[in-house]
C-alpha cells in the first residue's frame, strides 16, 4: 500500500503575514494511520501550518491536502476528513455540552448522531456533565469538550494543537490513552506539543520546524540516533577534581558534577582518574540521550 493517498500532504507552503514570514517553503507528507509529531519553538509556524490545513488561514503559495482533497479547492471533502482540536481553550457559552456536540454534528450535516456523541462523551468522561453549560466546566473539561467536538464527524485525520498545555496529569493520561486508541483504530494523528517526552513516547515520525522551515523530518527512532550525548551526574566526596578534567566536568549549583560524553570509554577514563586522585564517587546517575537533546541540538545547529 505504498501508493496510498497520504493523510496529509503539504507542498512548498509559504505564508507571509504583513511583516513576518510564518512559513517558508514547508513540504511534508503524513501517511494514513501515522502518529505524527510537529515540533518546534514558539513562532516556528506550527499553528500556521495547522490553520492552513484546517482552512482557517490561506497560504500565500503552495498547496495542502487532506486525504487527497485540496484544502481550498475541495474544502468540503477536506474539512469533512479533518478534526481539529484548537490550541486555545474556546467554548460557546450559550450552550450545554450535549447541545454543543449536537450543533457541531449538524454543521457537518449529521442529524442523528446521538449514539456516537454518547460514545465520545463516555470515553472522555464527559457523561456526568452532559447538561452543564460550557461556561461552568473546568479547564480540563473544556479541553475534553474540544476534543469531543473535533470527533463528532468521525474524521480519519485528527489534528491536536498542543492539547496538553496546562492540563493535569490525570487528564493527560486519559487523553493519550484515548488518542492512542483512535490511532490504533486507524485514525491518523498529527500532534504539536512542547512536551518532548510525550512526542517521543507517542509519535512514530516527527517533523521539526524552525522559523517556518522543516529542519528535521524522520522517524522518531532515527532522530534519537542523531545524538549520542550521554550525561553522567556525580556526587563526589572532594571539593575539586583532577586538573585534566576541569574543562569537561562542571559543578552545578546543587554541588553535583555533570559530565557530557559520547563514548563510554571517556566515562571509564574519568572514573579511573578519579580513583587515582583518591576521589570517592558517592552517587552516580546516567542519562540516556532523549528527544529533548536532539531537539536542542537541531535547533542550535540550524
Amino acid at each position: 500500500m505504498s501508493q496510498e493517498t497520504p493523510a496529509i500532504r503539504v507542498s512548498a507552503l509559504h505564508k507571509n503575514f504583513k511583516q513576518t514570514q510564518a512559513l517558508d517553503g514547508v513540504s511534508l507528507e503524513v501517511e494514513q494511520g501515522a502518529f505524527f509529531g510537529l515540533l518546534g519553538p514558539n513562532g516556528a509556524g506550527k499553528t500556521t501550518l495547522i490553520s492552513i490545513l484546517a482552512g482557517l488561514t490561506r497560504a500565500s503559495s503552495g498547496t495542502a491536502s487532506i486525504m487527497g482533497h485540496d484544502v481550498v479547492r475541495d474544502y468540503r471533502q477536506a474539512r469533512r476528513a479533518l478534526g481539529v482540536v484548537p490550541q486555545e481553550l474556546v467554548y460557546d457559552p450559550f450552550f450545554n455540552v450535549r447541545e454543543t456536540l449536537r450543533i457541531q454534528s449538524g454543521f457537518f450535516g449529521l442529524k442523528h448522531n446521538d449514539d456516537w456523541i454518547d460514545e465520545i462523551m463516555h470515553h472522555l468522561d464527559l457523561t456526568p456533565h452532559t447538561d452543564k453549560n460550557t461556561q461552568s466546566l473546568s479547564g480540563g473539561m473544556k479541553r475534553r469538550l474540544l476534543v469531543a467536538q473535533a470527533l463528532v464527524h468521525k474524521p480519519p485525520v485528527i489534528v491536536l494543537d498542543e492539547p496538553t498545555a496546562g492540563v493535569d496529569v490525570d487528564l493527560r493520561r486519559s487523553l493519550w490513552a484515548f488518542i492512542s486508541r483512535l490511532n490504533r483504530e486507524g485514525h491518523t494523528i498529527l500532534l504539536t506539543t512542547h512536551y518532548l517526552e510525550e512526542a517521543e513516547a507517542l509519535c512514530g515520525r516527527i517533523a521539526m520546524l524552525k522559523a517556518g522551515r522543516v529542519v528535521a523530518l524522520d522517524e522518531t527512532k532515527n532522530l534519537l540516533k542523531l545524538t549520542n550525548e550521554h550525561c553522567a551526574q556525580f556526587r563526589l566526596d572532594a571539593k575539586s577534581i583532577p586538573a585534566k578534567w576541569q574543562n569537561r566536568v562542571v559543578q552545578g549549583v546543587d554541588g553535583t558534577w555533570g559530565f557530557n560524553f559520547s563514548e563510554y570509554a571517556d566515562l571509564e577514563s574519568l572514573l579511573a582518574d578519579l580513583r587515582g586522585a583518591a576521589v570517592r564517587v558517592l552517587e552516580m546517575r546516567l542519562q540516556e540521550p532523549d528527544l529533548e537533546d536532539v531537539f536542542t541540538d537541531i535547533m542550535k545547529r540550524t
Partner: protein
Amino acid sequence: MSGLSALFYKELLRFWKVVVQTVVAPVVTALLYLLIFSHVLESHVEVYPGVSYTSFLVPGLVMMSMLQNAFSNSSSSLIQSKMMGSIVFVLLPPLSYLEFFLAYLGASVLRGLVVGAGVLAVTLWFAPLSMPHLGWLLAYALLACGIMGALGILAGVWAEKFDQLAAFQNFLILPLTFLSGVFYSIHSLPAFWQSVSHANPVFYLIDGFRYAFVGQSDTDPWLGLLVSGACFVAISAITLLLLRSGYKLRH
C-alpha cells in the same frame, strides 16, 4: 440536517436562550416610547388627516425595533464568537460562505420579525390600526430585517473589538433609525432636511411600512420598495464578496 440549517438553528437557539434581553427588552422599550410620545404629542400633532398621532407612531416604532434588533442579532453574535474564539467551530466545518451568510441572515430576520410582532402586540391596544395592506406590511418587514441582518453580518465581520461595533451601532444605526421619520413626518422638516431624508434608505422602510397600516405615506410605496430592494441587494453583495474573500475570518 444540512450545515446551513444547523447554523440557523444554533443562531435561533442563541437568541432564544437570552429572550429577555433579545425580545422582551426591546418590546418594553418601544412601549415606553409609545407611552411618553403619545402622552406628550397626541393632542398637538396630526401628521395625516384623520390619523391620530399614536396610530402614526405605532408602525414607526415597530419598524424601528425590527431594524435595530435584526442588526443587533447577527452583529453581536459574530463579534461575541470572534472575541471568544468560538467562531472556529463555524469555520472548521464544511460550510460555504453562502451558507454562512444565509444562516446568520435568516436568524436576524426571524429575530427582527419576532420583536416586531411583540411590539405590535403590545402597542395595538393603544391605537386602532386598520392594517389595510398586509402584503406591503410583510414586504417591508422582510426587507427591513434583511437589510439590517446583512449589515449586521458586515459590521460583525469587520469589527475587531466590541468598541468598534458599538461605534457602528451608536453613530450609524441608531441615528439612521431615529432620524428617518419614526416620530415625525419628513414633510414637517425644512426643505434641506427633507431632501437629505430622501437619500436615507431607512426613511423609505419606515414610510412604506407605515403606508401598510394607515394607507398614507410621504412617498409612493413602490418607490420605497425599489430603493429598499436595491439597498438589500447591494449590502448583501458586498457582504458576500467579503465573506468569499475570507475577510478578517480566514486570514
